[in-house]
C-alpha cells in the first residue's frame, strides 16, 4: 500500500510503534476508563470494552473532569497506559495527563485517516504519524 503520512503538532516528545485504537468520540478518563485494567467503561462509547494498554490511542479530544489527568498518570504507573496519544484537538485534561504520565502525544491529526488495528509509527518529536500497515479486523486487548 501507499504509505500514509500525517503531520501534526508535538505535545509530548517521544517515538514509538503501536497498534492504533481509534474512536470518533471524546474520552473522559475520569469515569470513562477503568483505572484497574485500562478498559473503556463509558456507556455507549464506540470503544466500550476495549483496552487502551499499549495502543496508539486516537480520539478527537478529551472531556470531563480535570481529575482525568491524574487517571492517565495512574494508568501509566500500572503499565496500563496507551503507548502514544493522537488527538484531533488537544484539550487541557489530556495534555496535562500526558505530560505528567510521560506519554508521547501529538495533535492536529485528521484521525479519520487512521483505522483501529492499523500499525502506526509516531514520531512525537516532529509531530508525524505514519500508517505502516492496514488491518481490517479489530483486535482485542491482552
Amino acid at each position, binding site marked *: 500500500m501507499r504509505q500514509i503520512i500525517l503531520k501534526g503538532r508535538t505535545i509530548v516528545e517521544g517515538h514509538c510503534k503501536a497498534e492504533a485504537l481509534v474512536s470518533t468520540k471524546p474520552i473522559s478518563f475520569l469515569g470513562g476508563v477503568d483505572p484497574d485494567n485500562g478498559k473503556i467503561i463509558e456507556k455507549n462509547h464506540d470503544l466500550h470494552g476495549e483496552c487502551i494498554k499499549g495502543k496508539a490511542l486516537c480520539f478527537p479530544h478529551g472531556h470531563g473532569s480535570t481529575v482525568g489527568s491524574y487517571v492517565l498518570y*495512574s494508568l501509566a504507573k500500572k503499565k496500563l497506559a496507551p503507548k502514544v496519544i493522537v488527538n484531533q484537538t488537544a484539550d487541557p485534561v489530556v495534555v496535562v495527563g500526558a505530560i505528567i504520565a510521560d506519554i508521547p502525544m501529538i495533535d492536529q491529526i485528521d484521525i479519520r485517516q487512521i483505522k483501529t488495528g492499523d500499525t502506526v509509527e509516531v514520531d512525537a518529536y516532529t509531530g508525524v504519524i505514519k500508517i505502516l500497515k492496514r488491518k481490517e479486523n479489530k483486535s482485542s486487548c491482552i
Partner: protein
Amino acid sequence: MYLTKEEERIYDGEHGWANQICMKILVRLGELFHATRLIPIESAHVSGVSYKTLGDAPGKFLETLANADGKVRVKATLNPQSFDPEYLGRKLPEHIREKQLNILRQFEKMGFTQSLTCTPYYLEKPKTGSHLAWAESSAVVYTNSILGAWTNREGGPSALAAAIIGKTPNYGMHKAENRQPNILVNVKTSLKNEAEFGALGIYLGKILKDKIPIIWGLKNASEDELKQLGAALATTGMVNMFYHNIQLERRTMEKISVEANDLKRTVESLSTAAKSKPDLVFIGCPHCSLTEIRRIAKLVDGKKVDAGTEFWICTSRYVKERSGNSVERIEKSGGYVLTGMCTIVSWTETLGIKTIITNSAKTAYYAPTLNKAETVFAPLKQCLKTALEE
C-alpha cells in the same frame, strides 16, 4: 511562547523534577491557548482534594511531587475535603479517613494552606486587578465578577502547577479584551430569594456557554445571592464572569430575556424527590459567609431540629472561628456547622443519606449523580422549616 532564562532553566530540569513537570504543564497549556509568556500570580487555589472524587489515582502523583521537592511559590489554598474530622469523620471507616489524610499531608508538605474551602476569598480577598490561578468554578466566577481579580477557570492540576511555579500563562481572562461583555440578559421578573438567583444561573449557564453576560434586573442583589448565581452559572455553563451593575449597551450586542416562567420551570427541574421527607437539610454550597451563618442562627434560635433529620451547615474553619455565638446557637438547635468539607464531594451514600433538601442550585443539580440522592430545591427559610420541629 517567550520564556525568561530562569524559566528555561526550570523547563530544562535544573530545579528538579517537580518544578520541571509543573513548568511543562504551564508552557504546553500556554501554547495551546496562544499565550505569549508567563505572568506572576498573587495566589493559586487548587481543586481536587476530596478522596471521594479523586479516588486512588492522584495520591501517588501528589506524593511523588511532594517528595521531589515541589514547594508552592505563592499563597496557595485548597478546596474542601470529603468529610469534617470531628463529626462525619467518626462515622466513616478507617481506610477512607487514612486515604483522605494522606492527600492532605502531601499538599501540606508542598506548602498549601489547609483552607479546605470553596470560598477562599473570605479568608483573604484578592486585590482588585491582580492575576490568580484558581480552580473551583464558583470561586472563579465570584472573583472575576464581584471582586475584580482576574483568573481563568483552572483545572486541579494546572492550578497546582501554577502554585508551584508562581506564574500562569497570559491567555483568556488575563487579558482585558477577553473580559468584555458580549451578551445582554434582561431578567424580567424580580428574584425573591437566593434559591431563585441559583435557578437563574442554572438556566443561563445552559444558554450562555462561555459568553460573558451583562445581567439586568438584579437590583440590590446581595453578595451572597450573587455567589449563588455565579456558582450555578459555572455548573451548567463555561461562564467565567458576569456583569450585573453596568448599563453599557451596544447595538450589536446579542440580547436575551428571562421570564418568570423560565425561572419557575428551572426551580421545579431542580427538585427530583417526591414527597418523602429529606434525611439531610444542607446549607453551605458554596461555603457560608459570616452573614449567612448569623442569619441561620437567628432563624433557628430556640427551636429544635427534627430527631430523624441531619442538618448540616458547611463553611470554612476560618469563618466558623469568627462567627461568635452563632455556632453555639445552631448547635443548640441540633444542627452541625461542619468545616473543611463539601456535601457533594462527601460520603453521603456511605452515611445512608438518600434525600437532600438544599437552597443551593449547584448542589441540587449535582446531587442526583454525584451523591445518588433525590433532591428538594427550596429557599433557606423553607429548608429550615423542614429541619425544625413544628
